[in-house]
């Protein structure tokens, strides 16, 4: 339980140091405006219902890509391919909605399958030929993005570019997909009145989908024989083989699941109906932000919910820095926090040196020394995994 606490504490410390650095940067650039704007940035996310809706809206796909990376971490794999899986997931969801006019949940399933396929190949190469999954999945990021660009531009139906707005309305726009609002409103993720509640078009049920998936992942990892096997492979492949576990199969499965999670992230983001897929020249950052989310959460599925919410919150807050500060400022602050989050493990090691694990407390309730935030609670049963990576 204390280990859970230490994990949370170490992440919180990374965040605080990152914010402090950001403040310092603001002071250097514009001392007069630094403090008010910094305060605004910190509070923007909860300043109004629509802002908060935006936080949730961005957090949902982040949770998914974060889960994707975290799940693979648990199996000892580094899924740097979340970006590609996210992209093909997004495309298949949109294609399913726009071309085949399917309802939203079929589109989501399509995104899951597409992401899974994109995770399958790196996993297969890893297990059959021991090709490093980092290399293959980076290549698959680019293959995915380029393939999606190509398909968006070239899928014809009745002589028209079916994925582009031109096929649906008279529009000169050629660099993004058609909006679901006119192409197929049924493919949009239901809002269930949440949009009215928050007074924001960004709000839909995707955040709940993401949270439910995170909980399911936690259960799989910590309560099932399958999760036990996956973690055994991740911690010690040789010992898992010795125990008769099919390590090769598990590596593939782990990447398939990781891919499916990232793919679903792409689906829920683009099926919100508020963003269109734009023809990309660089890899989508959502996948890479997933790495930071997973690191910040020390790969705990429940932790990813909170770390994704945080990253999203600070991103929304960053918008309020404009126009006094350049919009790149918030990118720098986020980058620092993310950079430090990579040190979360290091901080954790240092912390565990100072926080003595007392034997008598092993089976007791969490010590009331620090007001442990909620995430510490679920983390307690996952304490053994906190060690990994």
């Amino acid at each position: 339980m204390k280990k859970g606490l230490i994990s949370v504490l170490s992440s919180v410390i990374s965040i605080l140091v990152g914010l402090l650095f950001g403040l310092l940067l603001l002071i250097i650039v514009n001392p007069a405006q630094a403090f008010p704007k910094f305060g605004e940035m910190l509070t923007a996310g909860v300043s109004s219902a629509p802002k908060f809706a935006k936080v949730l809206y961005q957090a949902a796909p982040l949770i998914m890509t974060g889960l994707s990376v975290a799940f693979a971490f648990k199996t000892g794999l580094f899924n740097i391919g979340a970006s590609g899986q996210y992209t093909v997931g997004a495309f298949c969801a949109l294609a399913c909605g726009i071309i085949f006019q399917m309802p939203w949940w079929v589109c989501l399933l399509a995104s899951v399958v597409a992401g899974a396929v994109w995770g399958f190949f790196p996993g297969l190469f890893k297990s059959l030929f021991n090709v490093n999954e980092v290399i293959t999945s980076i290549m698959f990021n680019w293959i995915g993005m380029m393939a999606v660009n190509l398909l968006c531009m070239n899928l014809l139906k009745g002589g028209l570019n079916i994925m582009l707005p031109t096929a649906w309305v008279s529009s000169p726009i050629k660099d993004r997909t058609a909006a679901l609002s006119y192409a197929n409103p049924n493919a949009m993720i239901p809002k269930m009145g949440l949009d009215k509640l928050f007074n924001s078009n960004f709000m839909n049920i995707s955040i709940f989908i993401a949270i439910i998936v995170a909980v399911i992942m936690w259960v799989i990892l910590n309560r099932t024989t399958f999760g036990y096997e996956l973690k055994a492979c991740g911690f010690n492949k040789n010992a898992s083989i010795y125990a008769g576990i099919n390590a090769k199969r598990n590596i593939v499965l782990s990447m398939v699941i990781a891919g499916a999670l990232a793919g679903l992230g792409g689906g829920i983001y683009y099926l919100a109906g508020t963003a269109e897929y734009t023809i990309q020249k660089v890899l989508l950052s959502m996948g890479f932000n997933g790495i930071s989310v997973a690191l910040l959460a020390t790969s705990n599925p429940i932790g990813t919910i909170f770390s994704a919410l945080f990253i999203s919150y600070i991103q929304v807050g960053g918008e309020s820095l404009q126009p006094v500060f350049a919009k790149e400022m918030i990118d720098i602050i986020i980058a620092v926090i993310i950079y430090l989050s990579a040190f979360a493990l290091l901080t954790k090691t240092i912390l565990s040196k100072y926080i003595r694990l007392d034997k008598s407390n092993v089976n007791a309730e969490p010590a009331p020394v620090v007001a442990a935030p909620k995430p510490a609670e679920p983390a307690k049963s996952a304490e053994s995994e906190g060690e990994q990576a």
Partner: protein
Amino acid sequence: MSEYVIEMLNITKEFPGIKANDNITLQLKHGEVHALLGENGAGKSTLMSVLFGLYQPEAGVIKKDGKEVKINNPNDANALHIGMVHQHFKLVEIFTVLDNIILGAEPNKLGFLKKAEARKKVLELSEKYGLQVDPDAKIEDISVGMQQRVEILKMLYRDNDILIFDEPTAVLTPQEIDELMEIMRNFTKEGKSILFITHKLNEIMAVADRCTVLRKGKYMGTVNIKDTTKEELSRMMVGRDVKFEVDKKPQKLGDVVLDVQHVTVPSKLHSNNAVKDVSFQVRAGEIVCLAGIEGNGQTQFVYALTGLDKMSHGKITMLGHDITKAKIRERSKLGMSHIPEDRHKHGLVLDFSLEQNLVLQRYWQPQFQKYGFIKNKEVRKYAERLIRENDIRSGQGPITVARSMSGGNQQKAIVAREIDKNPELLVAVQPTRGLDVGAIEGVHKQLVAQRDAGKAVLLVSLELEEVMSVPDRILVMYEGEIVGEFDPKKTTVQELGLYMAGAKNMYRDVEQKGGAEA
């Protein structure tokens, strides 16, 4: 000058949930061989780590030549001329002997190595102490015994005069052990002081002047070897009388459980076969021991037998089933248990808790899972039973992370897990490696209990004492072949040693005799 070269006075070192060293005092005289004896987890390694500056004690002082010193890191220890030969050698496999010796203390001028100077010094040292090495051979190409000589030379090269040997004889042949003892005696004649960590009472009796005994982190006393006996030492260490002989009921041989026919396993390192045409049988109610010096194909044979690796030729039958190509899980279900040689590589998932490790072979059984969900309560209950019955000690019981347990207790956990599976065939590879006499006695008892219960046991061992006392039959393996079969009651250690070193071969004696004598 003080009588003692190193004194560790009233050292206390705590870890979460455990007092590894509790007020321990160790005093090393000039020019003596001082043995440090204790069970697994008694705190020997912790004490040595404190001496090396790897841990800072909560209480106690260290004195060198009567003056108090502070050792914050291994460099400090080195500066005080303290050197150590670790149980697992710390050598760079692809470097030459000379490179390894000078590593970390390279003589140089303006950053350029002065190897000629180093070579001269190494050769002088090796001549002076009779430590034969080839400075240009690569570590991966030389024998374990020579690797150990390299480790010793490393200490000498750094002008260390306090030499620590951590279980140095575990990997040596009987002849090599004798040589090492002689070398140690030479060192003391030169005025060097030796700390000798071991479980083997015979060796302590043979070479040590005094012996300090630890038990469960506590100081039990220091005795003069001249005034003590093996029995007394073991009683001090374990806290009770220990039997050195293994009690066995008269043998009741049953059917053939394991039938190995012409098994050949290719080597991963070179083009030769690691295991060459090995055939034998193990029957119910007997313990067969595969003896030999490390690296003669035992490991590869066991890999093939247990399914960790493929064989290129041959057939293995267990209880009438052909398991030549069977999966590991299938072999396990047929009743094969495997105590692996390398407990960190295969035996344990170190980052799992103890209870998770205890169900590593059975988590999939209905007892522990339903619809794919692990029954945590059952796992806990089962783990608690095994921990209790096998006296597995750890800081936090079932939820202790395996990595934080002492080596001996890790081994106990593995042995408990594999034997509790109630196997038909138990493959035990060095099951007592790193265990103390008390725990060894326990493991031997369990092996014999399996045999008496009519199960088949295949024991792979490097320890001659174990080879002579536990099995009903001994097969000696040399360079991948079985070179002899013995009845432990009718053979001697010297005889076995000759076969293990390849000087004799029961099946080829006729052709070899001429060559070996010449």
